[in-house]
């Protein structure tokens, strides 16, 4: 019998977008991040049912509903905990964890550090707009200390959190910065992060046009990193600590082996499992 294979359907970015319309403010950078994620998944031809998008709480954390992938819109700051658990239990899935700077660096700050340290093979995408948008504009960990608004008159005076350096120091094996206004290069960076074996951290500058309208000017400041990706964490740290915050690209891709969960023993009977819990 002849082997007559039907041609495989090619997945396009549209195949990854659900029918749910985003409720983000018109002009929000998160629209193009969603577009970049769908483009990246299409470029890798990953079937939507083999991808899980996990998030916490905040404007950007709405993303799972806007994709056709499996989604989990979880608890504030706990997206990485849920995503890590999922990846360890189902290593066959491609796991994307998404969220904002408040969710990831404040409420979920400790999870962020330990996720970097564990180096589980997942991709963490943070849409950083330096503000809590959903709750109407409070300063976040990445807000500039002198950002003056009604909720923090004169600014918080508190030094900004530096997520890329923290990620490097904590052990992330892939660190990149992208800009939402450049969805094509952002899609390439996300695809590289997904392909990287280990914890890939991608910080995306994503303007909040409602509470930080001045961030529209970011497009005039971003520039491609002038140097190639390094696998030397110390060199990457020096570069990131001294750059202007608008350096775009994969800034570090290390070689550290991704965490692999020990193989589970064969499925046991209910009786055997119950015996383990007997006092």
């Amino acid at each position, binding site marked *: 019998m002849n082997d007559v294979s039907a041609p495989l359907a090619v997945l396009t970015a549209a195949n990854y977008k659900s029918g749910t*319309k*985003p409720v983000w*403010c018109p002009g929000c950078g998160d629209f193009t991040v969603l577009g970049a994620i769908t483009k990246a998944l299409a470029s890798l031809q990953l079937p939507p049912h083999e991808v899980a998008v996990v998030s916490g709480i905040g404007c950007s954390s709405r993303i799972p509903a806007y994709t056709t992938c499996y989604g989990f819109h979880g608890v504030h700051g706990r997206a990485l905990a849920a995503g890590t658990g999922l990846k360890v239990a189902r290593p066959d899935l491609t796991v994307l964890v998404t969220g904002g700077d408040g969710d990831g660096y404040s409420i979920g700050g400790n999870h962020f550090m330990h996720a970097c340290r564990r180096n589980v093979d997942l991709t963490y995408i943070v849409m950083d707009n330096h503000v809590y948008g959903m709750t109407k504009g409070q300063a976040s960990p990445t807000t500039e200390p002198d950002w003056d608004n009604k909720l923090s008159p004169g600014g918080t005076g508190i030094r900004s959190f530096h997520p890329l350096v923290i990620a490097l120091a904590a052990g992330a094996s892939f660190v990149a910065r992208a800009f939402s206004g*450049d969805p094509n290069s952002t899609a390439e960076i996300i695809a590289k992060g997904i392909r990287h074996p280990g914890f890939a951290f991608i910080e995306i500058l994503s303007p909040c*046009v*409602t509470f930080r309208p001045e961030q529209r000017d970011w*497009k005039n400041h971003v520039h491609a990193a002038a140097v190639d990706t390094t696998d030397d964490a110390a060199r990457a740290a020096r570069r990131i600590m001294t750059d202007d915050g608008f350096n775009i690209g994969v800034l570090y891709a290390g070689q550290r082996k991704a965490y692999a969960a020990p193989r589970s023993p064969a499925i046991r009977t209910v009786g055997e499992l119950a015996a383990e819990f007997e006092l």
Partner: protein
Amino acid sequence: MKASLPRTLVDFMAQALAMEREAVARYTEFADTMEVHNNQEVAALFRTMAHYESKHVEQILAQMGWASDPPPPEDGFGWPDLEGPETVPIDEVHYLMQPWHALQLALAAEQRAEAFFGRLAQMATSEPVRLAALEMQDEEREHVELVRAWLKKVPEPDKDWANDPDPPHYTD
């Protein structure tokens, strides 16, 4: 990013197709967003723009006899800016914008596209590419005039068009 120079007619048409696709996607996104924010008039206008751009997509596919889009070049299309010339940047819309604003954005996009094809025609190293670029430039020029004519039928907004009596900002 520097504009890449398509060497063959197929490369050129693939680039033109990608440009139109991006524009359709962005206008559709804007239309959806404006619907969500109950700005129905502007939503309808963006929907119409998406429809016109999708006609160009169909036109290119038919002209080239393509059933689907050719794969993009490995190093991308090399747009002169962050996105395709006909794509309105995501941050240029506002929830209270009016049709006049939307048409201004469309006008700027058509003008960018006209200039883009004009540059390609000047730089083309193959005659078929040069002729096709000139043809596209002429089409975009027509679109510029159409949008200008449309703009004349639309009232200019008041200076305080963005004033919201119930703003999203915290105001004590």
